[in-house]
């Protein structure tokens, strides 16, 4: 998995900014994508490219249970969000719905990655390679069940 970084240097990026409340009534995934990150980044929809990564600080996706949030990011082309920590419902929505990978990273890694860096993510090795800076970081391994659900391609494909 390879792509460029869109970085938000802030904590607590909540679902109200990832996909604002007025769009909750919409359930067309491609339409939702047009409004992704609208609460803090009006240009997100124009600049995001398929395969890009979002990098952010602590407690990414806090707030509401709206699955619209990972859906909007996923249908914008985001394949993974790399953050120091995630809010629980965003995390399970991302994994169980197989919309994107929530990757937990160390604070040093978060600080080291810059906007526009090219990253390569290899979850089987728990590795993130920064091709721009020629560095390798560790991602926090998925807990056992999460790893299995990710490998299966979502909760509905996972056999208990």
């Amino acid at each position, binding site marked *: 998995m390879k792509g460029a970084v869109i970085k938000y240097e802030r904590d*607590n990026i*909540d679902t*109200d*900014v990832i996909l*604002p*409340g*007025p769009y*909750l*009534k*919409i*359930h067309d*995934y491609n339409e939702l994508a047009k409004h992704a990150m609208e*609460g*803090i980044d009006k240009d997100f929809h124009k600049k995001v490219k398929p395969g890009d990564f979002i990098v952010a600080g*602590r*407690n990414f996706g*806090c*707030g*509401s*249970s*709206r*699955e*619209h949030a*990972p859906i909007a990011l996923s249908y914008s082309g985001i394949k993974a969000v790399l953050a120091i*920590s995630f*809010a*629980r*419902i965003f995390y*399970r*929505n991302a994994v*169980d*719905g197989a919309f994107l990978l929530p990757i937990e990273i160390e604070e040093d890694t978060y600080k080291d990655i810059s906007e526009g860096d090219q990253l390569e993510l290899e979850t089987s090795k728990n590795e993130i390679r920064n091709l721009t800076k020629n560095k390798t970081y560790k991602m926090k391994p998925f*807990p*056992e*069940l999460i790893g299995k659900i990710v490998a299966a391609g*979502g*909760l*509905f494909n996972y056999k*208990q």
Partner: protein
Amino acid sequence: MNITEKILARASGRNNVSPDDVVFANVDKVMVHDVSGPGVLAVFEKLKKSGMKIEKLWNPDKVWVAEDHFVPAADKISAQNVVLLTQFTKDFGIRKHFKYGMGQYGICHTLSHEEAMVLPGEVYVGGDSHTNTTGALGAFAAGLGHTDVAYVLLNGKIWFKVPETLYFKLNGKLPDYVMAKDFILKIIGDIGTDGAAYKTMQFGGTGISEMSVEERLTLTNMTTEAGAKSGIIEPDQKIRDYLAQRGAVNYNEVHGDPDAQYAKLYEYEASELEPTVAKPFSPENVIVARELSSTPLDKAYIGSCTGAKLDDLRAAAKILKGRTVKIRTEVLPAAISIFRKAMDEGLVKIFLDAGVMVGPPTCGACCGAHMGVLAKDEVCISTTNRNFPGRMGHVESKTYLASPLVAAASAVTGKITDPRDLK
């Protein structure tokens, strides 16, 4: 084991569970509303396209449906979602669907207790983050997204990591003019919006025993704003009486063992708590109301599952009686049954006499949906639960979170006001 561990152990058929164990828990009740319902249907459509047959739900009698976010239908899309929801309950034989304009309806979390939809000891999940609210009845209650709710609707179970429990002990009765809202805002200010991430927040102590059931629900409601998986309070006689008044008497209460473990104990003295406000743009941005007393406001909003229960309306009416509001003020009772009680007690008249607009139950402007959303630069004091950028409308509007007493006192003066300072 503590109450949460015991409920999850029972629901997953185990003798014992410990924090960090991953279990598939059998679900007792599940709720969807006019946002998560259509969201679940979109998941069903996706599954059908991949070849899955979806003909019936695991148990339609354990499913209930609310209409709250965009009702009364805010626009054409919202109206279509309500139609979709109605078709959904008809197709799958769900009998408990609270429809606006047909008797009792309201905000899902309010109906969960007003209608005793959830009982002590149960595992309850809902397609909404404030599902935590119902934990005040002594149930394990947690919010889920559309895929997870779809999974529950078809399989009757879902995975949970057994959470650690943070125990918040309140010593003594809350002073006059201090409400549960002030206490939970104080806690969120202390531990932060991720202070309870992935954990359960349990409340206890003499201050909780003294509290009304509705006030307790304010505490568990906003555990969500501390990132918690769930909030819970062990049931007592007040809960039994509350449920009995609503016709619910048969259930299996769960209580923690004497040697129950808690990850951390936080202790608060009720006498030290004061009217408290969370400033924009985070519920953790907490300060005592008096320190903001020069802050001018454009609007006061007394609504939502957090702040429009009957006790909340009584509190607001206590302040507004014989006074007039200086700024636009809305009161939106959280359910029709509460609207009716407010009318019977004369509260609606007090509001109207004060110049307040009284509207229908809805999530409304709390989530920026409709019914009084905020314009650019508008400043609102609100009894709701979140104040992230754009939460109640324009991304450059500002929301201060407060108790109904503080919101009502502020409505009277037009600036943030500690109700103790109201002349």
